[in-house]
């Protein structure tokens, strides 16, 4: 790695932090400044001006938006996320109970989807133009566009209602055996996997095909290297950057999908907590969850970019 790459990476990190700052401004502006007077809203229209003024003072609403934003940001950085209005508990406590569940769901989904997607993508790139490839192309193209709740509904219908193999509702608590684990996670993970696998397989296929079209692969083909070896030894190492990029970007798609999936399966994760918070207009909780999701998203996009930078040999060597 040379200084050039290091500089590029540092700049990328700097840009990510700057973006996160701007995102936090946007989030704060939308949730706290634009909607108007929170004190008036929470007291209703029959409150006396004195009551409203008192609550404003208590909530710190008498200060200008910029000051409130800085205050909020400081608290956020120091880990004080405020208090949830609807459950009168600290937001951090509420979230701490839910985050591991969502992490678990995401981890299992990633573990299942990445190998499947890579196999499908590489396989269809190898048999390009063939029957398997065109069928896979069609299926992945269709699945990319399928809403999660369609997959979830059909999966529940088939596996829980018709076949009776799995329960439709999932609870992450009291898991004792691997079998129970399977039963709990099968449907949510399957639903999440569908869209992500399709997305990832398409990008993997494109990345590998890009390499297969290059002159050095043609050279290898001309000297009689077997197709298997061409893909695994020649094309794949060169496609690893774009593929890693594709994996990270697809996983960032999880963040949207998990909102629907946790709701439909009653999974006690952070996304369902956020949907409840939105329904109850519990602003502190909404802000904290949003910032968590946006940070996770930015980290994944950052990882994707870093993979692209690091795998580019022109940037790696002098």
């Amino acid at each position: 790695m040379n200084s050039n790459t290091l500089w590029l990476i540092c700049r990328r990190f700097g840009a990510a932090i700057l973006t996160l700052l701007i995102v936090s401004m946007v989030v704060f502006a939308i949730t706290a400044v634009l909607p108007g007077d929170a004190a008036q809203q929470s007291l209703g229209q029959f409150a006396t001006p004195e009551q409203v003024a008192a609550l404003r003072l208590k909530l710190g609403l008498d200060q200008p938006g910029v000051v409130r934003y800085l205050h909020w940001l400081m608290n956020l950085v120091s880990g004080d996320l405020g208090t949830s209005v609807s459950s009168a508990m600290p937001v951090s406590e509420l979230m701490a109970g839910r985050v591991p569940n969502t992490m678990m769901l995401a981890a299992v989904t990633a573990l299942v989807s990445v190998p499947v997607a890579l196999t499908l993508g590489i396989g269809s790139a190898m048999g390009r133009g063939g029957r398997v490839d065109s069928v896979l192309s069609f299926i992945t193209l269709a699945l990319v566009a399928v809403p999660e709740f369609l997959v979830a509904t059909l999966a529940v219908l088939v596996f829980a209602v018709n076949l009776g193999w799995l329960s439709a509702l999932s609870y992450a608590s009291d898991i004792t055996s691997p079998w129970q684990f399977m039963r709990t996670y099968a449907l949510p993970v399957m639903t999440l996997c569908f869209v992500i696998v399709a997305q990832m397989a398409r990008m993997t296929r494109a990345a590998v095909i890009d390499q297969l079209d290059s002159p050095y692969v043609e050279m290898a083909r001309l000297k009689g290297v077997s197709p298997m070896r061409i893909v695994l030894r020649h094309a794949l190492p060169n496609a690893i950057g774009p593929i890693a990029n594709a994996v990270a970007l697809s996983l960032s798609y999880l963040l949207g999908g998990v909102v629907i999936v946790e709701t439909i399966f009653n999974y006690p994760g952070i996304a369902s907590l956020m949907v409840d918070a939105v329904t109850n207009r519990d602003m502190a909780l909404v802000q904290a969850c949003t910032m968590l999701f946006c940070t996770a998203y930015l980290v994944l996009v950052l990882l994707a970019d870093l993979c692209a930078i690091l795998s580019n040999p022109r940037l790696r060597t002098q």
Partner: protein
Amino acid sequence: MNNLIVKSTPSATGPASTKVSASRSWLGLLGAATCFIWLLVAIFGPWLAPHPVGEVVSDNIFDVMGMAHPFGTDYLGRDMLSRVLVGARFTVGLALISAVLASGLGTTCALLSVVAPKWLDEVISRLMDAFISIPSKMLALIMVSAFGSSVVLLICTAVLSFSPGAFRIARSLAVNIEALEYVQVARTRGERRMYIACVEILPNMLNPVLTDLGLRFGFIVLLLSGMSFLGLGVQPPDADLGSLVRENIGGLNQGAPALVIPALAIGTLTIGVNLFIDRISSRRSRRSGGH
């Protein structure tokens, strides 16, 4: 999510053999037909509905498909066919309006940033970058939590989260075109910036921009019906296809058509759009000699 769209669509097809391209064009035709049918449903659906949309017409809830009610009945015993026909107008209409606005805003900003002074370009680009880093569902959730859900708010949200993607694509197209000789000639000729943007650049990037609009339409359908599914989108008594899935989720155990049909309807719409757009963009990349 927007950058996913950008990266996943182009060049996904290699120099395809004729067999593949034949099946591809057949699928593209299927996609185009599906889009067309849904467009017709959105326009004429409410007039074709056999029953008023809110009327309880049957004593059986979650009725199966039959002669009287082709799509069965919903959780209150309302005619499902009528509800889908009316709901489709919301889904297609809202998404179409949002997609046109998002693409329009993105393209306008892109043209502006290409012909405008450097600092304005920088400001617009930074702003768009910030919005592209908020996942569309998150943006939609905080917008709804702050302002409550309404049709106007949903459109605003969709435009806010999908115009940055449109902007990126349009800007990269515009930057390329702006470097071409005929634009330089126009500039030397002393044409005004507005003229260069609207007469020289815009017509030459219209095709890819329209393709992008189609893609965005599909993703907005997914976003809006997802929000409605969470109960945070189109509010009762109105119902789009996503709301129909939500309100009939109780029929899951019986496999009620009231639940399956609207979910499938959204699926066919988005898949149709994707097939159609894939066909258009792969044909263009072949014609332009790209891979």
